[in-house]
């Protein structure tokens, strides 16, 4: 029998009594009493006429003696405490909110989509730099274990306590692999040599953020021995802090055994304007697009030569389009956009207005498409703005090349919101999902107003709310709190007991919840 508390005396005859009781006094004689004198004296007073009754009497004596004489266990070794955390404690109301959000309790005041609001809560709390009450850290880590997108903010909030817990509970080991704070210089070489893949990527990303050159050297030190699929992801890590210093390494990677590594290296080089790669691509681009008078003449390449292939242009078109058009697109998309202004003296707007052709085929769309890809890759806001143009008029698909959402992502936040608001006003929500997704959250008041108005029109037009479920989900997360009264008004005006009434009710509830949740973090709602 395992007793969590030890007894003062184990030689008290209990084991013998237990054996006799298990087998039965019909088969086993009553054991002789044992133990210290006081116990023996008490045992001597037991009437032994019926061995079964006597055994129970004796067992009662010993059992009570054991309970009354229990002593504490020896102290185990004390583990080290968690490192101190100097951040200010989370306001109390916010702590209660987090308890609801991580679902430890499905308590009251919980509308809609708690799961959708948790990431927002976490980001806001991280921005405020709060320390969580200790007892909320385990449920948060449990939530982050199941949802990897929560890990970075959860680990940042959990702080030293999170790492201390992760040392003790296997379930939370991911904490050590999640990038949340500056690389610890001393942890470096060991993690890189011995760590799991995820730990190594995390380490590389952190180091790159702080000391780009060291990160490059670390990667180069083991590069030949890495597996091809790992090399691709390590190379991706160089995107942050990319500079001319990375060029020789990337140039070398253009001859890598793996096709994906070659393509990634080429992509990175194409965003380095001054590189030899960019110069080579610019040469090729000049050869395929020329300004002749007031028109752009296109002469697509006749073949994909070894140099082009080395620079990451696949000889076979993966899309099934004509190979010459494919090579043409790859060249223009990888060439530095600055070359066009330098060569022609024209800005993007002017260039985009010029007619395009080779005499027979219309190359306008191909050229715009390639420029759009280049604008996104090179994060060129002037080109992105010109390519997007004004919001297309109603009923027109528009001549926007590439993906408008991706072009939009290149623009500053205010411009993105303004363009999308104009788009929603004109075209409603049907095609707005990706555009809205490209806008910073929470949405600006004008964008929020445009979305609410579009929802009102959609409700009025007899459409079903679920045909807008994607946009509605995003709206719950992103609508500006200032729009709450407008939504509440919609909810009040909607025909009762309809799907739209329920939708607006829910939206209004979520907005209130979000507003309260963010206010608590500021400490206003105390």
């Amino acid at each position: 029998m395992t007793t969590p508390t030890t007894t003062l005396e184990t030689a008290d005859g209990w084991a013998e009594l237990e054996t006799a009781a298990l087998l039965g006094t019909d088969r086993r004689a009553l054991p002789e009493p044992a133990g210290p004198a006081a116990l023996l004296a008490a045992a001597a007073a037991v009437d032994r006429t019926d061995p079964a009754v006597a055994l129970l009497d004796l067992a009662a004596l010993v059992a009570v003696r054991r309970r009354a004489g229990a002593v504490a266990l020896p102290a185990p070794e004390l583990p080290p405490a968690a490192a101190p955390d100097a951040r200010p404690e989370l306001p109390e109301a916010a702590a209660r909110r987090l308890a609801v959000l991580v679902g430890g309790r499905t308590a009251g005041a919980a509308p809609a989509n708690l799961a959708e609001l948790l990431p927002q809560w976490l980001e806001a709390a991280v921005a405020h730099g709060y320390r969580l009450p200790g007892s909320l850290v385990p449920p948060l880590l449990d939530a982050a274990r199941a949802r990897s997108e929560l890990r970075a903010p959860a680990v940042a909030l959990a702080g030293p306590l999170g790492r201390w817990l992760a040392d003790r509970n296997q379930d939370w080991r991911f904490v050590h692999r999640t990038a949340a704070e500056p690389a610890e210089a001393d942890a470096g070489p060991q993690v890189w040599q011995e760590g799991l893949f995820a730990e190594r990527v995390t380490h590389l990303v952190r180091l790159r953020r702080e000391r780009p050159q060291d990160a490059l050297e670390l990667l180069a030190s083991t590069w030949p021995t890495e597996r091809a699929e790992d090399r691709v992801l390590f190379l991706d890590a160089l995107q942050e802090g990319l500079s001319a210093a990375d060029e020789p390494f990337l140039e070398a990677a253009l001859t890598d055994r793996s096709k994906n590594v070659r393509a990634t290296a080429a992509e990175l080089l194409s965003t380095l304007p001054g590189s030899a790669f960019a110069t080579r691509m610019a040469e090729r681009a000049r050869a395929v697009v020329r300004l002749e008078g007031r028109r752009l003449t296109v002469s697509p390449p006749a073949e994909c030569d070894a140099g082009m292939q080395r620079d990451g242009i696949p000889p076979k078109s993966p899309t099934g389009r004509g190979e010459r058009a494919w090579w043409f697109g790859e060249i223009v998309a990888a060439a530095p956009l600055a070359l066009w202004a330098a060569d022609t003296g024209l800005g993007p707007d002017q260039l985009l207005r010029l007619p395009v052709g080779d005499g027979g085929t219309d190359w306008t769309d191909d050229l715009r498409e390639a420029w759009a890809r280049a604008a996104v890759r090179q994060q060129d806001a002037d080109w992105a703005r010109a390519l997007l143009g004004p919001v297309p008029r109603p009923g027109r698909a528009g001549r926007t090349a590439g993906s408008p959402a991706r072009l939009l992502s290149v623009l500053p936040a205010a411009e993105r919101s303004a363009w999308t608001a104009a788009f929603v006003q004109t075209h409603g929500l049907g095609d707005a999902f990706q555009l809205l997704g490209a806008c910073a959250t929470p949405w600006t008041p004008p964008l929020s107003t445009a979305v609410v108005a579009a929802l009102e029109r959609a409700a009025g037009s007899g459409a079903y709310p679920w045909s807008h479920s994607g946009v509605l989900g995003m709206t719950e997360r992103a609508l500006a709190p200032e729009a709450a009264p407008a939504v509440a008004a919609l909810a009040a005006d909607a025909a009762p007991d309809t799907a739209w009434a329920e939708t607006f009710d829910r939206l209004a509830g979520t907005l209130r919840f979000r507003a309260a949740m963010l206010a608590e973090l500021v400490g206003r709602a105390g």
Partner: protein
Amino acid sequence: MEERWSTEHVLSLAPDQASLKAAGKLSGPAPWSGAGWEQGVLWGLCKGSGSTPYRAAVELATPAYKCSCPSRKFPCKHVLGLLLLWSAGAAEIAEGAERPDWVAEWMAGRQAAVEQKTARQQVRAETADPAAARRRVERRTARVSAGAQELRLRLADGVRRGLADHAAGAADWEQVAARMVDAQAPGLASKVRELAYTPQQGLLTGYALLHLLAGAWGRVDELPEELAATVRTRVGFTADTAELLAGPTVRDRWLVLGSRDTADDRLTTRRLWLRGAKTGRPALLLAFGRPGQAPELALPAGQSLEAELAFHPGARPLRAVLGQRYGAPEAGPAEPPAGLSPAEAVAGYGAAVADDPWLESWPVVLSEVVPVLGPEGWQLTDGRSAVAVRRGSVPEAALWRLAALSAGHPVTLFGECGPAGFAPVTAWAGQGRPVGVGQ
């Protein structure tokens, strides 16, 4: 004006999860109108599906609830929603508003009912026939004695055949339990039922202690008065609340150390542990609710209440009933309660067992202990001695929350100390507020 309740406090009143969820939807200002709060009464009108709004009101001190909705849940979702709205400090609830007539009527009706009940109790006490009462007690005593005798025979038979066969006879023990109920010894019945599901390693202890109890009943008249009272209680005699309150009471400022609810399909039981600020006495209050109803008595840990308690008699008095209160519960001291080391706590349980051999645990505050997970499970240590956390007393996740709360630093813990270890109930970290461990 008293403090608003915390959201936790309100949540603890909910009879079940479904009510909580429903109340959450009513905790926004939208459905409410005419809400107010004045002199310990909270009220509001909640728009439902019908044309007339429901009238919900709460008398905060008792607390007592009223709602005009037809729900059988108690308190209903409207009352809970109103309380949640209020606890969030919503401006829609007018502070110091004049109570509407329906609230005033309800309060007056409550007052009258309380007075009537007191009067009825007085009448009953005056008209009771002492001779008839004594005859009833004698009849019951005889039946219990027969039951206890039968139980001793059954236990001895078990030991004669061998406890290795015990598991096979679980159904037989259900029958014995039913016989104990017939013998009007519900305490013996529940112990017998426990025995049916006791694992083999604890069987002999269970048999022996039950044998000791049944034997003690046989000579209850020879025992010292306190121990005799303990035996009576454990066999299943209950003390009448009114009678207890008519006897000696202890007035003190009672600090709430913790509370725990357990529910089965017939009953929700709430245990509330208190400690007197002046007397240092521990006390345990029990409150019950039917399924779907939270027990009415709700006192959050850390609050303290000036009141009279009447203790059930016994060798180790602990269970008490709440008598006269003096004022509403207030926030208790900011610092954690004073406590003992693990060695002292274990010894304290031992001393209590010396008074009442059937005692399974004794409430205790542990000071400055660190929860440590070792190969044998969780232990609580102050660096000099340790006590194990009783397995299964709280879920594993709760112990991790406790570990996180401590972060390796000492905490103050309230709980029950028994032969199988310590069952934590409430924790205080540093100068922080009490945190329930089990929930």
